[in-house]
């Protein structure tokens, strides 16, 4: 499927599992000791250590930049919220983000995001695939599906897990697109729960499952013989993942976490999902998408400023704990944490009825950290009232070029769908934001 197989930065199949250096290290150990099983285990562990991770916390609805990372307190556009000094001199966040303010010197903030799709679903699609829905030649995959293809998990773990759903529309959480069902994020319903409808635990149930799977494989082979069917391949891939899940059932078991760790994340659904995301990453799952509430919760057209306090506060507690936890567990340097929505909100306080802000794509904010992101950086700025980007505009393609670069994936890679080139970012546009690299 990969079109630019010879591109120096494009990974080859073997790169997914072991580097050449790791392989030689392992071969040397085997030659000296001949401990084949140790060799395998050792290298699996090392390969896992090479793995980079992403935790994307998605703030569906369009978080207000004014009530998060780019407050304009005291200006006519500022609204009622106050701000608080962060650990980065001169940089202030919303008053209800004390934890993220404390961690500002560990994260980077982009205050000059600019995009052009103001509809929730189109913007969700753009912000999570890098492609506009109207421009795609093939259904674009979620970028974490793309990452799962380029950097799959070692040890048979799921490569990409989705925690929680956004019910606001069918493009809110894009699927694997043309990559096929094998790269679909493993869906968990949220609130810290694992996958639904798995066969029951226990050796007998696993045996039963394997027996049914063998029958299905046998029947499937009969169908596949002489046919080239990506649908059948996807079907097989999806079923193949179930047995892996059955073997790794305790991946999702938050009851195994000590109460003190659980407490730090707060009692909310987001807190539980952020904890589960940290647990999955710690166990080796590379890519996790966390949904912050369903129902376009950040879409604050009305009664915005009062209710925003609750939303921001739980977001701050959960994501602050996540960042602290990843750092304490020495996962920070290889885990990219992204806090973002699909766009921002209007500088003018308009509202539909009571005060709120409408959709705004011209100038908005997000935050990222870990995985080599330069800490304490604030990229770009907006003007005094936040009505326009003042300097250093960053586009969605720029953002994806940055994400892929941080993960060691060449953002100029082109994949192929039905003989047509499909770049990772739309029309291969975008330049990595060098300030955060």
């Amino acid at each position, binding site marked *: 499927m990969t079109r630019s197989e010879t591109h120096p930065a494009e990974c080859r199949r073997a790169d997914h599992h072991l580097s050449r250096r790791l392989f030689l290290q392992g071969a040397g150990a085997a030659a000296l000791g001949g401990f084949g099983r140790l060799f395998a285990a050792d290298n699996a562990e090392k390969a896992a250590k090479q793995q980079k991770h992403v935790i994307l916390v998605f703030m569906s*609805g369009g978080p207000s930049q004014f009530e998060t990372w780019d407050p304009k*307190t*005291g200006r*006519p556009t*500022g*609204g*009622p*919220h*106050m701000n608080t000094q962060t650990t980065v001199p001169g940089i202030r966040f919303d*008053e209800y983000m004390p934890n993220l303010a404390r961690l500002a010197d560990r994260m980077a903030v982009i205050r000059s995001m600019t995009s052009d799709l103001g509809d929730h679903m189109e913007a969700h699609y753009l912000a999570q695939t890098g492609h506009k829905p109207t421009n795609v030649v093939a259904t674009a995959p979620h970028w974490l599906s793309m990452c799962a293809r380029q950097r799959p998990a070692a040890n048979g773990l799921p490569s990409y897990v989705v925690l929680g759903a956004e019910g606001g529309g069918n493009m809110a959480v894009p699927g694997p697109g043309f990559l096929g069902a094998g790269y679909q994020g493993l869906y968990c319903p949220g609130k810290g729960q694992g996958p639904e409808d798995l066969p029951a635990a226990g050796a007998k149930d696993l045996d039963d499952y394997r027996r049914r799977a063998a029958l299905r494989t046998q029947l499937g082979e009969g169908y596949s013989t002489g046919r080239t069917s990506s649908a059948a391949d996807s079907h097989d891939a999806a079923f193949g993942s179930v047995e892996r899940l059955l073997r790794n059932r305790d991946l999702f078991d938050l009851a195994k976490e000590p109460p003190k760790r659980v407490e730090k994340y707060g009692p909310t659904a987001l807190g539980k999902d952020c904890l589960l995301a940290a647990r999955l990453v710690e166990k080796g799952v590379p890519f996790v998408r966390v949904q912050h*509430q369903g*129902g*376009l*919760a950040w*879409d*604050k*057209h*009305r*009664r915005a*400023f*009062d*209710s925003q*306090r*609750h*939303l921001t506060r*739980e977001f701050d507690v959960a994501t602050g704990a996540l960042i602290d936890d990843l750092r304490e567990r020495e996962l920070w340097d290889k885990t990219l944490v992204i806090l973002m929505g699909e766009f921002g909100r209007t500088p*003018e*306080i*308009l*509202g*539909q*009825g*009571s*005060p709120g802000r409408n959709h705004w794509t011209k100038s908005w904010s997000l935050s990222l950290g870990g995985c080599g992101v330069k800490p304490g950086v604030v990229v770009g700025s907006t003007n005094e009232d936040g009505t326009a980007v003042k300097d250093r505009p960053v586009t969605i393609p720029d953002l994806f070029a940055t994400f892929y670069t941080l993960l060691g994936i060449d953002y100029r890679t082109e994949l192929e769908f039905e003989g047509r080139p499909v770049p990772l970012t739309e029309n291969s546009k975008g330049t990595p934001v060098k300030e955060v690299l």
Partner: protein
Amino acid sequence: MPPTKLTKLKTYHVDDGAKRGPMTMSQVRFHPTERVLFAACAERRVAVWNLDDKETTVKNLTAVPGAFACPHETGWVRCLDVSPDGKWLATGGSDRRLKLWAFAGGKPADKPTHDTEAHAGWVEGLAFSPDGKLLVTGGADLAVKVWNAADLTPVKSLTGHTGFLRDAAWLPDGSAFVTGAEDGKLLVWDAKALSLVRTITFGGANEQFGQNPSLSGVHRLHVSRDGKWVAAAGGKTLTAFDLATGTPVAEDKSDAQVCFSPKDDLLATGSNNAKVVAYDSTKFVPAKADKNGKLGNPGPLPGKELAQIKLGDFSLGMRFSADGKLLGLGRADGKVEVWEVV
């Protein structure tokens, strides 16, 4: 003769020409002795009108134009109250500040007489005591604070709420005051001992999430003229309680807003649609406990509905004048309607 109907008098509107959305009134107060109306709105200043000014028509809007006064440096004014003698106006803001403004010559002074950082969070709910000597404030820091009204020196900070404070009101005899919060609780405080007398559970506490967040827990509260009843509104419900026992005595499906008339047994409530009820407290049906001790629902609010006034979605701000003859109703579109109680 008890009142029998309400008649609309005038509409009041404020606009300083700045480009922005509707000012969205959130609290309304009448001056106790002069013909002046105040409103807190989506602004760092208070809107002020002379009740007797004439309506003008600008761009299809016929309303009495107002002015802005009592500026806070940042944020929005979240609450205000006028002292019973009419000499002082107090404002609390999301900037955490409590300001005291002298009122003379038909308007508040340009600068505050006193100005203090009152809470570690938005100041919500503010009420002068009936004798004008004390001020009570609530804050997003969950604290209830009592102040000397003359100079804003702190008297005592009280704790007990577990959610953002929303409103405060005194009993007419000054013996106690009540605070309400998003935790769904009404706390009744003794005004002399400055200690908690009673906790009343209103309920409705939930986190305000989603695209259409409700006003969770207690949003507004008020005490009846005889000091017997306290009514709380929030979420989707209005409940009246017996202040002496904390027992729910009546409920209604109106929401968000409530105020009693200081002169008659009248209660105004509702947000999108305000209604005014001449209630009959002799027909209150208190909630009863079942065999497991669980309290049931009280009876519906008994009385005669005098008016049903359509205000539009998300409208807030509701208060009777001190003589009970006027009712001010704030609207989300930045207007205040004044109705005469006849």
